[in-house]
């Protein structure tokens, strides 16, 4: 469960100060499938990064499963990222010279999962994304769509409760984008909360709820199909 209230975030100082988020209030229940849309610079990625404990904020409160994120130090935030969150970014953010299996196992290197179990969980995740046969290839040997699926496998391998995706189809063709969104839908049906930042209406159309941000403020938050 994500609960954000009166969240403010700005970049720069003085005349160069840019208000990225202003008084954002948001509740995302478990199992949601949410699209965050907005123009470039609207603040959608900033919101996602704050929700993902990758960025800080000046004012407001953010509770992730009843944990107040505001007061947590780097170590605790890292633990939270590791246990509860999975990330999928536009540029895949894979370690290209390492194997697909290694990439999928990566988050579990930073927790107490035994090595044997790590491999098993990573293989299960790769099976879910349809890359079981490719585990020994290096990430650089895969196509863009396959790399994004490795990123998804990595994001879900540690069984997080929330998957955060920042323009996950931005670097993919239409057909592959559709496959990725079908994968997200499947994971959401299995109970995973999925939050996708996108400027693509087709991608947003796959989600159950749509949040539109403009100038750092949520101007619309509605179930999909309601305008």
């Amino acid at each position, binding site marked *: 469960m994500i609960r954000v209230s009166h969240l403010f975030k700005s970049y720069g100082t003085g005349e160069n100060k840019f208000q990225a988020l202003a008084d954002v209030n948001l509740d995302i229940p478990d199992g949601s499938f949410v699209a965050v849309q907005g123009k470039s610079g609207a603040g959608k990625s900033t919101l996602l990064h704050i929700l993902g404990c990758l960025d800080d904020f000046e004012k407001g409160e953010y509770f992730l499963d009843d944990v107040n994120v505001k007061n947590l130090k780097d170590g605790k935030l890292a633990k939270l990222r590791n*246990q509860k969150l999975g990330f999928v970014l536009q540029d895949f953010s894979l*370690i290209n010279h390492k194997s697909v299996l290694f990439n999928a196992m990566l988050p579990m290197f930073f927790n107490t999962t035994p090595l044997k179990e790590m491999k098993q969980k990573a293989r299960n995740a790769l099976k879910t994304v349809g890359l079981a046969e490719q585990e020994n290839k290096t990430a650089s040997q895969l196509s863009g769509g396959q790399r994004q699926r490795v990123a998804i496998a990595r994001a879900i391998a540690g069984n997080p409760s929330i998957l955060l995706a920042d323009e996950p189809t931005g670097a993919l063709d239409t057909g592959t984008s559709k496959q990725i969104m079908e994968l997200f839908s499947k994971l959401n049906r299995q109970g995973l909360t999925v939050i996708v930042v996108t400027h693509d209406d087709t991608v947003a159309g796959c989600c159950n709820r749509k949040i539109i941000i403009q100038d750092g403020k949520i101007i619309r938050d509605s179930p999909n199909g309601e305008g």
Partner: protein
Amino acid sequence: MKFLKMIGNFYSRNKLSSVVLLILFCAAMLVANFAIGRYRYFTYTQKVFCNSGLDHFVYFMPAGFGPDAITLPPDEYSKKVEDYHRKIKSFHAVRSIISAPWNGSFTFQNAAGSGYTLYRDELLKAFPLRITSGRSLDADSNSDPNSGGGIDAVLCGYLYHNIKIGDTFTVRLHPYKSSQYTDVKIHAIGKMDDPAYTVSLGFGGTKVQADELFDRGSVVILRETPKLLAFLQKNSTPQISENFFIDLNPESTQKERNDCVQYLDRQGRFVTYDKIKTDTEKAVSRTLKQELPMPFFFLFVSTISLISISILFIYKNLRQNSIYYLCGCSRKKCFGYMAAGIGLISVAAGGVNIILMKNIGFLVWNGFLSVDPMIVDQKSILLIVLYELLVLFLSIGIPYTVYRRFTPIETYRRAQQ
């Protein structure tokens, strides 16, 4: 196991850089060892002399022996020196004297060129031996030539590198007046690695510096007792330098001291402890100015290069680290992996250096390597470790200080640029 895998991952993309860093680390540590070893070499005898506690002493170089003394048979010469000591001791102002050690030669492993030095207890107290392994000579040391276990000895120099502490070996003594020889057992209780300095007091001149009061070389140091000296005088040809230290009693009257000083002035030359100290300081300072700028310049350059390359190495890994952040790795853990990665390289380089330094005597002795004299011992290992820690601290600390200001996503963005 996971930690090791992550360190392995650190190297996997940086094989060549790791090798370059290893070579740089080795070179920098070698330069550090050389520079510090040279510094310690130049200041060693000064330090020993300043710590000798001979503040009230004067170093006396009698002229009475003259050039004729060289032509005297060794035993007659020695007798003359001892008579002289007795004469000086008879002055009221003289509390004690520290005469030069007896030196003699023997044959070791069928080869000449080695010898013994007899240290009296007062000499051991004033000039403690720089023991690098085992222990020094003391009142409990065995100096009985007839004991089955051998005479306790401290071995100096590379000649004895094969002999271990606790080993017993035989040397052959040759007397001056006959061709008969005597075999004596020596029991190694301690070692002084090269450069092994022993007190000689052989130098005479107006300007005496600390290093001129010592000799370097492969010798066996034994504790002098009347019984051992008598044995050696009978079976070999020990000699003693005519120069010695005189302890002028500060509690004696001015007249008593003047009487003695006037006598010394007539009989030869003497220099005070303070004068030797001052002349030594000047000489060491001059030598350091001449000899050390180059090694320390190289040390500075290699250290800066090493830290720069290490930092570049870390920046090169930043993209990978920023991905670790996404996956739930903390900043400290990320830098911990890199510190361990670079740390292992430095440990490997340290190992190479320690092996090299341990065997430098062998390499120099056998002509594989030619280096200027320097002091390398256990302290050098400690210095290597401190140097490694300093380099590691700066290499990791600088990027960590820079990047701790950034949130994980800022680090990620910077790494992607």
